[in-house]
């Protein structure tokens, strides 16, 4: 076209970023992506190709890592770890050097990322790469501060990290930076489709003076990943699909490996009728058409208030028409290529299988591209409203009231992120805490930063990446846990009662004493063989009833910390009044003086009562004009298998921690010494504890554990039990990916802070402001 013709059409024209430097970089290195182990390259094999999805041309061959190669990498990491853990300041210097190195090679990283993944160069250049660099800068700071600010924490050791293809470099940074900062060494496996930016990163590590073995990269596919999961590592950090996350949860169950999972999502994007509609429409461009919608926290579920829905959809369609889709290396492109034909096929199939609502699609070029798509008129029951599509497809429905918006928003198995659009601060700040999500953006979307934790609830996984809250995933308390000795219940050949007046210990469910569903009881004997009484044998139906009771007590989670503190103090007061009696009962059961245990219970109740209104959240220093509020929220329904050795304290301690943070809890009392339940529920009954907030069962831990861990409406299971149930709990927890905290057969003595952290989820609420 002549200039005159362009003057008349005012087309954008091509604005290509050159790929030649990146392609040259690859060819200079033999055109093969492979392992970087112990600071050295290799072996390098062309086991499968890495293609440019925009052109389907082969970019490089990729080495498929074997189990032996994984082991070699893990050994290198193991060997390098103690020295690496020594000096936080030295680590800070290295992390800073990595950040600087990435800055120097930023364009190479960006172009490589776009070539390999198909995302628009605008995004890799302006978002992925700068955020990745920011992560290393930020965590250089955490390395520096670890000694003084986290004096009670130490590194986990060797971390195995498996990352997805949607943000290859950014996810690498999110994994490696905190692990290294806290003194761990890593073995990272990039995604099968996208290994190339990790190669550039490895070279930057060498240049930055990362000691050999501290960062190891093993390329490969799912099998390589599985080998890493089963290798001798201390932690697995995984970002990817919920399906694979579930498998990893099962595979690591009982191994003692720490685990963090950042999985799928179907994040709601809620537009109220007083929102700035044009800005909310523009927000959707960043929510669902960013990275072709291949974003775990994509705002993929649009909920619009009914009265404005038609106007909103009209504006949205107009905006969609303006999206430019095509060559990802073009600087003027909004939507690039789908990562791989397999993924494209999956998106196409899901959308074409849908027959509900109305579908609006723009045009896409031939090849591995999918057009921006809007499907309106769906209902929560529609498959596409529930299933993650992981493509540029937005599904929409309407709501009438704020509470209905929350109800629809939370009607999902996922809980990663959410957006709320309203110009009414009261409304927005009321809705944000009510959403089941790890991240909420008020009048914004897809805002991320190294200073704020990222991660979800429910089946979106657990653990946080970024911020102070992200560091706990790469550290552990500095304690050496001793093996736990199994305590057996006393038996007898005598069978005569110690006290002829029978005392029946029932279960305590929903504020009422309840007989066990099964109708069985178990005798409990003193060390001297006298019959002390009978404990109810709870079964899975009693557990189910306890969960129903917990669900009936949701108001507790909204109560104030002050009120919860008052009730915990009141329990302590009533416990104190019965000290002599409780101590005697403990002595009857265990043969040891109960005085100390009762005192300890009162102290523990005071501790958690004290914390109830003091375990504050944070305001993170994120780079926006606004705040990111890291709010500590209760996890929800909890089940705890109590410490066998402490008949009363074993119940009081987790109960107080859970209740203090606003959780509802079901305790399964000490297996050998279950009879303290009767005393405890009498105290709870007189201490104004609302019905259902604390429920107590007695019964066989091993029998109840899989049911508790498998219950879809329990959000966390803790076990301090002497029974060998840690593996069972972790495995069964894969069902709804609930949080687990188990002892793996060790006597763990958590600090109050450890318990509080385990009893809460951090939700980051981003609130940009400005008028």
């Amino acid at each position, binding site marked *: 076209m002549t200039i005159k013709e*362009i003057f008349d059409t005012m087309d954008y024209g091509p604005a290509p970023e050159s790929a030649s430097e990146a392609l040259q970089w690859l060819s200079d290195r033999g055109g093969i992506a492979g392992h970087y182990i112990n600071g050295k390259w290799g072996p390098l094999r062309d086991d499968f190709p890495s293609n440019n999805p925009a052109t389907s041309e082969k970019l490089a061959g990729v080495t498929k890592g074997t189990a032996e190669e994984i082991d070699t990498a893990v050994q290198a990491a193991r060997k390098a770890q103690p020295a690496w853990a020594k000096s936080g300041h030295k680590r800070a210097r290295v992390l800073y050097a990595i950040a600087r190195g990435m800055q120097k090679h930023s364009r190479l990283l960006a172009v490589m990322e776009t070539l390999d993944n198909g995302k628009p160069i605008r995004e890799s250049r302006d978002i992925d790469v700068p955020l990745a660099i920011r992560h290393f800068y930020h965590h250089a700071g955490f390395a520096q501060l670890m000694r003084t600010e986290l004096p009670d924490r130490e590194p986990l050791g060797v971390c195995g990290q498996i990352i997805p293809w949607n943000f290859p470099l950014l996810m690498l940074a999110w994994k490696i930076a905190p692990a290294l900062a806290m003194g761990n060494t890593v073995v990272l496996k990039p995604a099968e489709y996208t290994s190339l930016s990790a190669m550039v990163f490895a070279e930057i590590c060498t240049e930055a003076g990362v000691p050999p073995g501290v960062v190891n990269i093993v390329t490969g596919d799912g099998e390589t990943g599985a080998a890493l999961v089963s290798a001798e590592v201390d932690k697995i950090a995984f970002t990817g699909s919920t399906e694979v996350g579930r498998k990893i949860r099962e595979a690591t169950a009982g191994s003692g490996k720490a685990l963090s999972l950042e999985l799928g999502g179907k994040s709601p994007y809620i537009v109220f009728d*007083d929102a700035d509609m044009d800005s909310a429409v523009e*927000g959707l461009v960043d929510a669902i058409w960013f990275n072709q919608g291949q974003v775990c926290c994509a705002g993929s579920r649009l909920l619009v208030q009914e009265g404005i829905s038609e106007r909103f959809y009209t504006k949205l369609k107009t905006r969609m028409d303006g999206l430019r889709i095509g060559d990802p290396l073009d600087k003027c492109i909004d939507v690039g290529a789908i990562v791989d034909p397999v993924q494209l096929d999956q998106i196409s199939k899901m959308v074409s299988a849908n027959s509900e609502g109305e579908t609006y699609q723009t045009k896409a070029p031939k090849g591995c591209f999918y057009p921006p798509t809007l499907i309106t008129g769906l209902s929560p029951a529609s498959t596409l409203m529930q299933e993650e599509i992981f493509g540029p497809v937005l599904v929409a429905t309407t709501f009438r009231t704020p509470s209905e918006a929350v109800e629809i928003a939370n009607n999902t198995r996922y809980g990663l992120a959410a957006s709320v659009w309203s110009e009414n601060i009261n409304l927005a700040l009321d809705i944000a805490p009510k959403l089941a999500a790890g991240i909420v953006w008020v009048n914004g979307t897809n805002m991320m930063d190294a200073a704020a934790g990222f991660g979800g609830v429910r089946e979106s996984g657990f653990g946080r990446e970024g911020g102070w809250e992200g560091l706990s995933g790469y550290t552990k308390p500095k304690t050496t846990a001793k093996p736990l000795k199994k305590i057996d219940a006393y038996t007898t050949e005598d069978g005569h009662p110690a006290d002829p007046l029978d005392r029946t210990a029932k279960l305590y469910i929903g504020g009422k004493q309840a007989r066990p569903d099964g109708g069985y009881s178990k005798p409990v004997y003193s060390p001297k063989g006298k019959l002390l009484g009978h404990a109810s044998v709870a079964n899975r139906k009693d557990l189910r009833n306890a969960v129903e009771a917990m669900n009936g007590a949701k108001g507790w989670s909204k109560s104030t910390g002050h009120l919860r503190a008052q009730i915990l103090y009141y329990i302590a007061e009533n416990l104190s009044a019965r000290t002599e009696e409780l101590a005697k009962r403990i002595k009857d059961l265990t043969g040891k003086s109960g005085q100390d245990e009762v005192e300890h219970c009162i102290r523990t109740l005071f501790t958690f009562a004290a914390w109830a209104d003091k375990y504050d959240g944070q305001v993170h220093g994120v780079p926006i004009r606004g705040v990111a509020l890291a709010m500590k929220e209760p996890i929800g329904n909890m089940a705890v298998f109590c410490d066998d050795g402490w008949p009363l304290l074993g119940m009081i301690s987790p109960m107080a921690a859970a209740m203090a943070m606003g959780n509802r809890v079901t305790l399964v009392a000490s297996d050998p010494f279950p009879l303290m339940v009767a005393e405890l529920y009498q105290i709870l009954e007189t201490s104004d504890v609302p019905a259902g907030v604390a429920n107590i069962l007695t019964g066989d831990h091993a029998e109840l554990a899989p049911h508790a861990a498998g219950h879809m409406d329990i959000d966390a299971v803790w076990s301090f039990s002497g029974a060998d149930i840690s593996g069972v709990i972790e495995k069964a927890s894969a069902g709804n990916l609930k949080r687990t905290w188990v002892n793996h057969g060790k006597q763990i003595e958590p600090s109050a802070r450890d318990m509080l952290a385990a009893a809460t989820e951090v939700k980051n609420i981003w609130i940009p402001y400005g008028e």
Partner: protein
Amino acid sequence: MLAPQEATLQTTASPTMTTTQLPQVQEQRNDGVPLDLDWVMAAQANTSAIERRAKTLPGRRSVKKDYQAAWLCKAISLMDLTTLSGDDSEGRVRRLCAKARQPVAQPILETLGMEGLTTGAICVYHDMVPTAVDALAGSGIRVAAVSTGFPAGLSPFHLRIAEIKESVKAGAEEIDIVISRRHVLTGNWQALYDEMKEMREACGDAHVKAILATGELGTLRNVARASLVCMMAGADFIKTSTGKEPVNATLPVTLTMIRAIRDYQDRTGIKVGYKPAGGISKAKDALVYLSMIKDELGDRWLQPDLFRFGASSLLGDIERQLEHHVTGAYSASWRHAIG
């Protein structure tokens, strides 16, 4: 009821004519609508979100090589070349008019194939209107006069109306009025509407651009609401600034105003023009503005009857860029004729 009435394109106007025949009145003129306060008060503008969009736009849109040259020529054709100084004289205005006729050195235009390119209009104070009309006779370049007690707009109302009429009588085809900022700041939308309506009437056939002086309106929400009220009262263009406020045209303000224009068109079918003024001095900025207009309002707005840059120093930078495009060597300002 105002139905959208797309006027038929003038079949006689060849594409080349659009560079010199400005503006072609192809759209139905905005006669305004009754003041609708529900609509006005429902207008929202989320500053942070608007700023984010404005901030990322330059990274999302890129125009290179021939396309860039063409776009820069377009920017010239959309320019209200402006002089609004207390020391303006007849000679100064004639010089500026000569520059408007020949905004870029002829050899460069010939290489680009853009002979005949002129600016959209000249913008001057009332006293300079006769000179400008005379200097531009036969060029097709329109003369715009700032009016109504520019820049503060605080002279007696009847004099402001009289000033409009004088300028129209003197040959100005476009009148850039300033609104009473206090009406916006006190939420007196009725007063703003009445004032604007009367000014529009005083303009007669001359087109009226309503200068909102956005730098003095306090919030983007006020900008959005004032934009709507002025359009309802019949403004042909809404314009950001006088160039005399501490903050003049910005991308967030632009986004707010053009979204109001889009909203007005959605509801009435009428297209209203937009003019950012003040502070746009780089060729690159002009490209960003054009891409914002293209993306948010559409290509139709990239014509002088619906878009203008109010600028005095922008042209100089564009000339340098165009020479660079033609020669491949970076240019110097003294190589280009001053206005």
